[in-house]
């Protein structure tokens, strides 16, 4: 059986902007697959190609074994698509929106109820409220229900959590995990790096190019250089001190600590910890604490970004 999604060497240009530049990956049936990257990376362009709304300039794509250019009508009846901007009708009620989306696909809310239930039950008490009177989190649940009501075989969610607070984001990903259990294939994009770990596999996308595709843990494990976290004392001053260290490759603030990457790939990590600790203590940071850490997906994304296009990153060291 062919993969649920197959993208091969896809290129898409808009005037002089290359939105997608030789993009290739596959997503398997039943997989929760993430497209992770900032605004302007090409996420929405990719989703529009996969949902047959635009065609690629070069390369090919298939969804459920169907060609995204030739088989567009067959694909459209079998995918659920939640665009980045909510596509709800503001002056229709919750239930009217749902009935409308069901009727477009020639089905009914009753037939789709079992699939949408885990999400829809949370907003069902407000079924007669107009969509424009819902909170952001409830609109999101309604949009997801509308994308699911015709029982698609694959779901495309374009930045469902953008602008949503940290609590609602967690809840949304919990819902996706429930939907995945029903066997649905889900392709979801996000600019939030911390959401990558909720996916089975991710494609990291930056400036129209794929930086890497794999399980999030596998990507992190490939981090090629010693990575250390430094804490204690004035963080802003310590940032400058660490960047002045002769073997510094990159130094970035990271939550409550600073992440320091050493340029010496083969050095003994514990020796670097000792060396860096001594250096900080000597340079005005007597309380500095340094420890070796494992990279997370955001460390990896930044490293791959610098490798891919160092000149694009103004002022980064």
């Amino acid at each position, binding site marked *: 059986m062919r993969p649920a999604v197959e993208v091969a060497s896809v290129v898409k240009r808009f005037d002089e902007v290359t939105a997608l530049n030789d993009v290739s990956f596959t997503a398997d049936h039943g997989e929760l697959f993430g497209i992770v*990257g*900032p*605004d*302007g*990376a090409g996420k929405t362009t990719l989703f529009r190609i996969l949902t047959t709304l635009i065609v690629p300039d070069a390369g090919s794509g298939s969804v459920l074994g169907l060609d995204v250019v030739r088989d567009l009508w067959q694909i459209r009846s079998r995918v659920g698509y939640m665009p980045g901007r909510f596509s709800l009708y503001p002056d229709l009620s919750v239930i009217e929106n749902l009935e409308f989306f069901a009727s477009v696909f020639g089905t009914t809310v009753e037939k789709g109820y079992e699939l949408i239930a885990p999400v829809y039950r949370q907003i069902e008490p*407000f079924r007669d409220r107009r969509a424009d*009177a*819902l*909170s*952001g*989190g*409830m609109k999101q649940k309604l949009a997801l229900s509308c994308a699911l009501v015709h029982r698609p075989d694959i779901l495309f969610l374009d930045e469902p959590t*953008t*602008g*949503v*607070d*940290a*609590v*609602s*984001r*967690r*809840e949304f990903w919990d819902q996706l995990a429930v939907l995945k259990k029903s066997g649905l294939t889900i392709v979801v994009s996000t*600019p*939030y*790096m911390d959401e990558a770990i909720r996916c089975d596999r991710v494609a990291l996308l*930056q400036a129209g190019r794929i930086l890497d595709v794999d399980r999030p843990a596998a990507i992190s494990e490939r981090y090629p250089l010693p990575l250390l976290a430094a804490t204690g004392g004035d*963080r*802003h001053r310590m*940032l400058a001190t660490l960047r002045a260290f002769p073997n510094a490759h990159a130094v*970035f*603030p*990271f*939550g*409550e600590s600073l992440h320091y990457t050493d340029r010496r790939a083969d050095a003994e990590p514990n020796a670097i910890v000792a060396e860096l600790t001594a250096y900080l203590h000597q340079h005005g940071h007597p309380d500095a604490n340094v420890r070796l850490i494992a990279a997370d997906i*955001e460390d990896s*994304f*930044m490293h791959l*970004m*610098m490798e891919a296009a160092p000149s*694009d*990153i*103004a*002022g*980064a060291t």
Partner: protein
Amino acid sequence: MTAAAVAEKPKAIVARELTRKFGEFVAVDHITFDVAAGEVFGFLGANGAGKTTAIKMLIGLLAPTGGEARVAGFDVATQTEAIRRNIGYMSQRFSLYEDLTVNENISLYGGIYGLSDKQIAERGERMRKSLDLPNELVGRLPLGWKQKLAFSVALLHEPQIVFLDEPTGGVDPITRRQFWEMIYAAAARGTTVFVTTHYMDEAEYCDRISIMVDGRIAALGTPAELKQQWNVRSVDDVFVRLARPAAVEEGKE
């Protein structure tokens, strides 16, 4: 910055029982807090918690229905003109003109803020140098550069306080960090920074943070104090514990 350290410093923002009602609905419910001059203050809360309403009052766009607040020493209810001259503001969505060049945007905002031609020329030059920006149409710049430019333009008239409303949404992780280095640099020059964000790691970069829940300030302190108080490892965990009850029973905002 601990509460004691804040108490000793001059204040950029003083809010006392600040309240805003819309009919029966209390969007901001008697909030009281100080922000010290030169502080980086993170203003957090779930969607619909009342952050935007509170910010609108602090920048003089919306009159309080109760309580009071002073920003840069001016009363938010009666001295809104003076407040606007003394603050900078950058919104979540990009606030520059896409079909004007970098220089044209700088001239336009400089003029709006009442700077002289000489000031505009000097500060514009300094800004372009430090940002290393080409004089392109702003619409052609990558998002990260636009956001850095918008921040610099918000500082053009050298305000005492700058309000940043989700300045890094959707920005790549490296540019996001560079943006925060610009925030630190502004704070080091004495500018007070009042910032909202949905990135909880950024909350850790603030001197102090407040977390709004249902119109009230449910927590206020340094990131370390809050983590200790709730006995959790990250600000994200503090946020989830506080905001969860509100999020569960959300009906409208």
